[in-house]
């Protein structure tokens, strides 16, 4: 776990969260009734209310991989939504399915072996899953953009930075080469790259890691997308550059009123940027809520474990807390709660049945029998 940057000095706004009508809960409720605390919505509202500021809504998304050794459930019934200009952080260890979900949104899952088996992805009210490849292409890079983790390999080594940026402009905005190039130079200066004219003519191998990530961002923002999916944008960079990139994303988000889905395994990054947070484990969301809920009233043992294992300067404990064991084999997930084998507070029910979400307030929920 990278050392976080001063967890507590960022003021967490105690947003009570916007009215969450129309908020959608996972559908496959189990039969066991939940007597005590929270209401369970049995089924989905048939017609999703077209709340104007609700940009993206994922409902019970299932993406499976048919490999030789068997079926891997990369993303097993995930639901979350993002409003305009809002930042949703998706957190979890590697292999928890956070990237798979993101890639499914843009339907970039390699067809053999992966397949989107179920659920819906509503973007501005229409379901992307029903889109034809051509329609999808109009969305990609134009309305939803994505940046990746490895700046070293994410840029085409034989094309100059300027060319790679102007490519999507030419594609979506119909610019001619010259217009696109001048626009690209503008974008490069927008993302804070010094001497953009020369940089535009240079090849990726001539740029530093941080600069390449900025070029990636310039490419993504070329067509002013409404949603930016950032798949661990800073993990491969060293800490100082990391902060600059996050601040850049924040600034551009404000400037263009863009929603951001930030995928990371670094709680420090989440603390700094996220409005809403979804914690994923083995292809499912185990806890979802505002960043304030997550950091100040974590409910799920896994989240608690994550928070405790984050190094904290003013935390006196000398030895580092680690979550025992490792992620179960995706080929044969345990019957009950996937976290059960590593859960310090596990009960016997956890081994038999999969927990379903229990709500604390109307936004914050956690899937754990502790709160049944």
């Amino acid at each position, binding site marked *: 776990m990278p050392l976080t940057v001063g967890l507590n000095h960022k003021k967490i706004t105690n947003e009570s969260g916007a009215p969450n009508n129309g908020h959608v809960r996972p559908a496959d409720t189990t039969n066991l009734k939940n007597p005590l605390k929270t209401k369970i919505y049995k089924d989905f509202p048939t017609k999703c209310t077209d709340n104007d500021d609700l940009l993206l809504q994922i409902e019970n998304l299932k993406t499976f991989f048919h490999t030789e050794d068997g079926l891997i459930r990369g993303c097993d019934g995930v639901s979350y939504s993002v409003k305009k200009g809002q930042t949703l952080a998706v957190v979890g260890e590697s292999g928890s399915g956070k990237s798979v979900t993101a890639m499914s949104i843009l339907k970039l899952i390699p067809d053999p072996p992966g397949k989107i088996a179920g659920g819906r992805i509503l973007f501005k009210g229409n379901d992307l899953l029903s889109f034809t490849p051509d329609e999808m292409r*109009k969305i990609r890079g134009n309305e939803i953009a994505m940046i*990746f983790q490895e700046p070293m390999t*994410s840029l085409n*080594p034989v094309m100059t930075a300027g060319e790679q940026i102007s*490519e999507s402009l030419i*594609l979506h905005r119909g610019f001619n080469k010259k217009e696109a190039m001048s626009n690209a130079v503008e974008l490069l200066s927008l993302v804070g790259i010094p001497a953009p004219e020369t940089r535009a003519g240079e090849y990726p*191998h001539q740029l530093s890691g941080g600069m390449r990530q900025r070029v*990636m961002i310039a490419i993504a923002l070329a067509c002013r997308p409404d949603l930016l999916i950032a798949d661990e944008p800073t993990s491969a960079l060293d800490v100082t550059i990391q902060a600059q990139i996050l601040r850049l994303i924040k600034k551009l988000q404000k400037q263009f009123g863009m929603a951001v889905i930030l995928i990371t395994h670094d709680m420090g990054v989440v603390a700094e940027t996220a409005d809403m947070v979804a914690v994923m484990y083995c292809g499912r969301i185990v806890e979802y809520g505002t960043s304030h809920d997550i950091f100040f009233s974590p409910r799920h043992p896994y989240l608690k474990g994550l928070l405790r294992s984050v190094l904290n300067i003013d935390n006196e404990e000398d030895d580092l807390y680690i979550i025992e064991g490792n992620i179960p084999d995706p080929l044969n997930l345990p019957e009950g709660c996937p976290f059960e084998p590593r859960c310090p507070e596990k009960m016997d029910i956890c081994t038999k049945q999969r927990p379903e979400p229990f709500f604390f307030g109307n936004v914050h929920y956690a899937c754990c029998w502790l709160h049944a």
Partner: protein
Amino acid sequence: MLNYTIRRLLLLIPLLFFISVMIFGILKLTPGDPAVVLLGERATEEALELTREKYALNSPFYVQYVKMMGNFFTGELKSIYYKENVIMVVLKKMIPTLELGLTALMLAIAVSIPAGIISSVKRNSIFDYTSMTTALFGISIPVFFTGILLIYLFAVKLKVLPASGYGGSMFTIEGLRHLVMPAFVLSFTMMASTTRITRSSMLDLLQEDYIRTARAKGVKENQVILKHAFKNALMPIATNVGNQIARLFAGAVLTETVFAWPGVGRLAVNAIFRRDEPLVFGCVLILSVIYVVVNLMVDLFYGIINPRIRYE
């Protein structure tokens, strides 16, 4: 880029010196007497002596070498058999060689690169399996066996194509009819290995991250494959084509023998058998120069397509 080329061309001179010394050494080892070739069965002893004098065949080793190199560059090195300046003889044979070689090269590239790309994109499809098995056969079957089979099929049985020989420039129907089979046979091996290389390098590249970035940008699929993946695949393909050209020379000799094609390869082979030392010397030297120059062109082609390699 320019001074790199000049430096590489300058390197050619020591290279040529070494090659010529090596060839000359081998030739001198050869038993047999070129003078005899000239005079034939009824040559008398002093007649042979006279001819040896004329071609300085029995003066010391290095004198002959210097004389030969001198004559070669001033163009007076005459082939004993063809009684003509060596460079001219080779140039006359150059046209059929180029026609055969370039057609085979173009045919191979035109077929193998698309085949490689399609079979890498449609992996494990029927197209992929058929092209890969044919490619495997292509690199396993001896050039001359395919030649003999084709001659039997098209010339002997169906009598559609001429069995062998050179029918004049390829821009005449007769010339083309003669060129079809040898060009196909020669290009078949090269086609096979280039397809395999294209497919495997494309497979590697399609896993790369920037392909995913391109798709995320909404680039059309065939653009992703051609513009992004294939442009990067050009380098391993160029390497393969580079050393295929070396095999083109060797393969050409065999193909030329099967189809009695009057190319430079066969000229060199006959020259060696005929003990025509000046011609052997000229042929091998010119072929080596061509080979080195072609390799230089492939390296320069690298420079163009691969920005990472900046020739200082």
